[in-house]
């Protein structure tokens, strides 16, 4: 090959290499940035007075005195709103009752006329009677018209009002004097400022869908609700609400780091993700407890004891194949074997999940340990054996310590894998809602876990739009756990290698 061609090829290769590294870095950034950005909002956000109320009442956290003072201000700020509602209701009542009196009077008069007409008929004054009957019919019709007027009035005032009240309850929680709702989520207003603004918008505007063009998608039309209330007691309701929302909610910058260590309340509407975090920790540690001894011992056997032959090569092929099996298959196997066949527990349990995960990561641990053991200089082994050490003693005192950095790297990488795997735990360990487990409960009970609940939240949660921040918070936490584990591995490895190198 000519020199120029070679140079050109070299340049092309290094260029390609650089480009692929850059693409990888950019992809990583593109994935990580939104996760970190959105995930951080589960921890740092503008929390409203309702957040502080949840913290105080549900988690017994915060300064009650100060809260009460703030809350009094909030109640005062909200009072005019509720007053306007009451006024409006009263106005409706008044109008209805005045029409009703009119209607009743007409009905009464009609009855009188009927009686008079009957008397006249009996006396034979038919002509007079018919006149009266005609008058009676007219009054009846008028009464009927008034009745429709009442129902029209009710329709035009009560229905929009109810829809405003519904939206308002979502914004601020239950109305004053209302019985405490059963669901926790209905006992409080919006805890986050961003959600507050969304809900405020829903109070201010109605949404309608225009499907008139059958060929296209429906078009969303937003109409200001105020249009429905012009000329009523509620006319100033909407501008007042919009202007004073800050006073009514008192948003403040909040650091909610307890998001990780708080239990969740009312399926993640309030509180944190501790059951998931703890479940993930249990599952990961459990998987390690089973996989590390098995994997390392298997690797030692394969490297140091087994005589190369067909059976050993077959076993190696099996291990490699196992590493490539899709994780859902492990999940089904775990269900079939650990739960149905040998029945390690009656229901799904952390134990069954850990066992399944340990099978999943076993090939990785075996292979990385094998590589690490094989990378130990043969000279160490010879030196130890030459001094009269047994093989077992040599493995324990010389080979394993020297192979430790490599083995640890493999272990931590598979820890990250075990922490993040979803499929193996679906059938064996994970539930969508649950309390944090005590240690002994892991033997028999299922647990929520981060990867499964991230999936579950976005597919099955009834109010997923309300709690996007929780979902991203979980993703952020999971990514952080995995990254921290890997960082730990790198540091540990560096330290041990340094110690070995002297």
């Amino acid at each position, binding site marked *: 090959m000519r020199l120029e061609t070679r140079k050109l090829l070299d340049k092309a290769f290094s260029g390609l290499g650089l480009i692929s590294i850059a693409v990888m870095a950019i992809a990583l950034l593109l994935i990580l940035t939104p996760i970190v950005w959105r995930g951080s909002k589960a921890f740092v956000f503008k929390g409203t007075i309702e957040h502080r109320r949840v913290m105080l009442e549900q988690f017994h956290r915060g300064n009650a005195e100060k809260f009460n003072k703030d809350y009094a201000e909030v109640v005062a700020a909200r009072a005019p709103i509720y007053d306007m509602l009451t006024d409006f209701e009263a106005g409706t009542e008044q109008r209805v009752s005045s029409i009703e009196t009119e209607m009743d009077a007409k009905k009464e008069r009609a009855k009188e006329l009927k009686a008079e007409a009957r008397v006249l008929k009996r006396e034979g004054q038919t002509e007079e009677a018919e006149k009266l009957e005609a008058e009676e019919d007219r009054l009846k019709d008028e009464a009927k018209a008034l009745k429709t007027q009442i129902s029209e009035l009710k329709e035009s005032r009560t229905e929009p009002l109810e829809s405003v009240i519904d939206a308002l309850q979502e914004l601020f929680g239950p109305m004053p004097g209302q019985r405490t709702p059963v669901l926790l989520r209905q006992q409080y207003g919006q805890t986050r400022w961003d959600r507050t603004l969304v809900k405020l918008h829903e109070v201010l505007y109605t949404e309608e869908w225009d499907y008139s063009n059958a060929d296209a998608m429906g078009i969303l039309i937003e109409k200001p609700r105020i249009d429905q209330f012009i000329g009523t007691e509620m006319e100033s309701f909407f501008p007042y609400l919009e202007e004073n929302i800050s006073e009514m909610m008192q948003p403040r910058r909040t650091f909610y780091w307890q998001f990780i260590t708080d239990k969740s309340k009312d399926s993640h509407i309030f509180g944190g993700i501790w059951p998931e975090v703890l479940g993930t920790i249990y599952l990961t540690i459990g998987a390690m407890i089973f996989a590390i001894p098995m994997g390392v011992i298997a690797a030692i056997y394969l490297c140091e004891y087994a005589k190369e032959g067909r059976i050993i090569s077959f076993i190696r092929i099996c291990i490699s194949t196992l590493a490539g099996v899709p994780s859902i298959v492990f999940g089904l196997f775990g269900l079939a074997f650990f739960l149905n066949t040998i029945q390690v527990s009656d229901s799904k349990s952390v134990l069954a999940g850990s066992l399944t995960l340990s099978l999943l990561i076993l090939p990785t641990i075996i292979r990385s340990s094998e590589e690490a053991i094989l990378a130990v200089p043969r000279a160490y082994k*010879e*030196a130890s054996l030459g*001094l009269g050490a047994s093989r077992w003693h040599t493995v324990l005192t010389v080979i394993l310590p020297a192979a430790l950095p490599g083995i640890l790297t493999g272990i931590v990488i598979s820890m990250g894998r075990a922490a993040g795997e979803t499929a193996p735990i679906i059938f064996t360990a994970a539930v969508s809602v649950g309390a944090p487990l005590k240690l002994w409960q892991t033997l028999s009970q299922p647990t929520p876990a981060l990867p499964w609940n991230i999936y579950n939240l976005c597919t099955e949660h009834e109010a997923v739009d309300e709690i996007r921040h929780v979902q991203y918070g979980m993703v952020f936490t999971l990514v952080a756990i995995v990254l921290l584990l890997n960082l730990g591995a790198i540091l540990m490895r560096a330290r041990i290698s340094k110690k070995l190198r002297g």
Partner: protein
Amino acid sequence: MTEEITMKKIDTFAERSDDKKPRKTHIEAKDFSLFYGDFEAVRKVSMKIPKQKVTAMIGPSGCGKSTLLRSINRMNDLIPSTSATGEMIFDGHNIYAKNIDVVTLRARVGMVFQKPNVFPKSIFDNVAYGPRLQGIKNKQKLAEIVEESLRNAAIWDEVKDRLQANALGMSGGQQQRLCIARALAIKPEILLMDEPTSALDPKATAKIEDLIGELRKQYTIIIVTHNMQQAARVSDLTAFMYEGVLVEFGKTKQLFTNPENPQTENYITGRFG
């Protein structure tokens, strides 16, 4: 090796030697062959290695010196598909017999390798490795053995202040002497050395050679060397091997000045190898 070990055989060669005292054979190979698979790397070697002498093995690269040396403590067992025929007798026992405990054998035969292979542990732990294996736990006792071994390996003065430092931080020559100390700490009867100075500079080499001169008083030493001057300087007896065969074995002075075999002569005069 549960049987009582006795030493009856008087080496005829040693009796003939200039030494007035009769010498005993420490190791004897009888028609000993070692195979790597089908390849016979050591061919029917018979030799008697006397006690408390330095025996050098020379010969061109690949002639089987290391293989023969490693046969003495059965280090070749580590390599799959090796096999041996003939006998290798150590203190009257064939070490290739079935009932031999290799671990005990190796505890009685120290070995120093071509490249210094200290453990990535502290200097102290390196030397104490063997004694600890033998069940010595007493710290005082261990410290005594470590000091004695380091002194015998002529490295005590250089390392006495940093016994807890990692052994990998030492120079190559120091590491090799540490390996010797480590081998001495198991109180072996025989010291096998496979080209112990080939990875070292001349200064370090000289130190090791001096050390061998000291150690010969207590140990039977077998040293493989590439370097004929070294063999001439340090050994009492020299064996010349060629293509797996023991060509000539005799007193060093005689072998270098008046070899019996023409092949030996060719080799030591530098005509091949």
